[in-house]
């Protein structure tokens, strides 16, 4: 079998998240393959528009929802702009799932704090819904999500669903200046929001994803709250081509994001060469 051969997927639904960010709901054309397709939260794939090329995104939907996957992307480069031109019913290519995943089994029976900024909510969303679909197996759930402005918040309908649930704590924030007159959330950056929303690190895992600058200033807050590096999980991105450990471009020193990651603990990140 040719490992670079994609599976064909149909676009079933398109949701515009922001002015330039879009979510596609995808179904495999080959129903036999769809039946046996499995993945875990945190894994990624190579999505392709034929004639334009492949692009790497996480799977943004949870493995607990069978029959489809979702991906969210910002129309930035050649492939993502081409993806944005597609309609419901169009076909794309998908290779995956690749990489490691968040340790859901290990997290069972414990509390989780989810922290995301901007489109960094996409991989975290897969874990959040996975956990919410198995809600009774986890303790307290806290979601802290922020973006530059209200318009930049993604998955807005789901934010409303989470806000209405009594079995989780949702804390939304936008950067100062990004609020609208009717904004009811915090006007603060993520590190401040975390300080306000998280009381204890006891018996709690942290899952964090967002721009590097956000992670840089949030990790010290988590450390101060008492989270050991081994209980803070994040997911890294790097430019990739194969996703399979062969094309040689996603490595950070000896660590291959595609094979050793994309999910790493803060403790592992501290030991990586500072080249990401």
């Amino acid at each position: 079998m040719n490992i670079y051969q994609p599976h064909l997927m149909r676009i079933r639904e398109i949701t515009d998240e922001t002015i330039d960010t879009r979510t596609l709901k995808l179904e495999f054309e080959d129903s036999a393959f769809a039946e046996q397709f499995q993945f875990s939260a945190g894994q990624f794939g190579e999505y392709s528009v034929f004639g334009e090329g492949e692009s790497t995104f996480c799977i943004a939907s949870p493995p607990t929802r069978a029959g489809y996957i979702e991906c969210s992307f910002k129309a930035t480069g050649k492939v993502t702009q081409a993806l944005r031109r597609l309609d419901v019913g169009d076909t794309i290519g998908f290779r995956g799932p690749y990489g490691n995943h968040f340790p859901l089994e290990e997290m069972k029976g414990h509390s989780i704090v989810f922290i995301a900024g901007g489109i960094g909510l996409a991989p975290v969303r897969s874990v959040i819904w996975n956990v919410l679909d198995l809600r009774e197996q986890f303790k307290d759930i806290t979601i802290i999500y922020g973006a530059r402005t209200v318009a930049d918040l993604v998955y807005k309908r789901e934010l409303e669903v989470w806000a209405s649930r009594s079995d989780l704590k949702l804390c939304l924030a936008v950067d100062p200046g990004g609020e609208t007159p009717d904004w009811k959330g915090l006007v603060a950056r993520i590190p401040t929001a975390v300080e306000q929303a998280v009381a204890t690190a006891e018996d709690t895992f942290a899952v964090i994803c967002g721009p590097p600058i956000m992670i840089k200033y949030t990790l010290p807050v988590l450390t101060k709250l008492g989270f050991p590096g081994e209980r803070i999980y994040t997911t890294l991105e790097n430019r990739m081509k194969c996703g399979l450990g062969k094309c040689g471009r996603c490595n950070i020193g000896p660590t291959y994001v595609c094979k050793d990651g994309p999910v790493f603990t803060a403790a592992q990140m501290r030991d990586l060469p500072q080249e990401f």
Partner: protein
Amino acid sequence: MTHSFLSHQGFAALVADLLAANKRVIAPVRASDDPGQVDYMPIQKFEEAVFGLRLPRRSLKEFFLPPTEVLLHYRQTKAGIEIREVPTAAPPQVIFGATPCDAAALEVVDKVMGWDYRDELWFGRREATTIVSFLCTLMDSTCFCTAVGLGPESFRGSDVLLVPVDGGYLAHVITPKGEALLQGHTAEASAAALASAETAQSEARKKVENNLADIPAELSGWLAANFDNPLWKTIALRCHGCGACAAVCPTCHCFDIVDEHDSADSGVRRRNWDSCQTSLFTLHASGHNPRQSQSERFRQRIQHKFSIYPSRFGEILCTGCGRCSRACPGGMDLPNLLGEIVTLAQTEPEVSGQ
């Protein structure tokens, strides 16, 4: 392993038989654009081959990982996309006159190509190929195969190694594939032929051994611990970032995957050679680039070959062929640079950056 004797006539007949049977035969030939240079090329006649003239300009890599190759064909129809797969099985081919460094490189790259996911395009060609290497007598000052555990007489990656002796070649028959190839073309090797081959082999070794001392096993760990050493700031000053080193390197295997239209509704997905020395290699869509300067990109090249690959796969991603030094427009000389790094590692074993 066995030994036999292959006469000059027997060798010519063997190649002629393969060509008559429509097998693809690859051998060193005079370069079409520069008769003073040699390239590995498919031949139609035994007489086209030139053995022992010069080191081929490029390695054997292109016969296993072509500079560009189609991964799939696609066509857009009203009903959706149709994909036409490319075959992973390759037609049989025999390579004559490989240098031992080029043959060994294939086995080194096998490790990453088989890492969890098996690259069947690579292995399809590997399995379909029989490699007959020649004892290398073509070394120059940029060669350092002995420093990376190989040598001009190394068997690694070869099915047969031929050593010129009086009247023909002493054949070291290394694999069953090699044995099958030579079947019926060889005679018993005389003691004199064996002795003469042994002398030729040790003499060839002597011609390259002094170029660079053996790379110490500790270098891999030292490089990993010295990711931020100031040496990286200065070592790459002459690097233009052109990627010529990667193109001629027998072990550089990094690639890009791109799509190409060949009409409004059809086209191909291709894999093309790429190089970590170019600035676009790691550039994110956001504009962020983890390796922003040439010093970081050159550090990646050295770290990948002499630390990352050894830590992952237990061996150096370099066979000491010297091509990067010969191809570099900036005059970067890998054996020299390695010598400097090894000296630094020995004088400052604990340095780990700023």
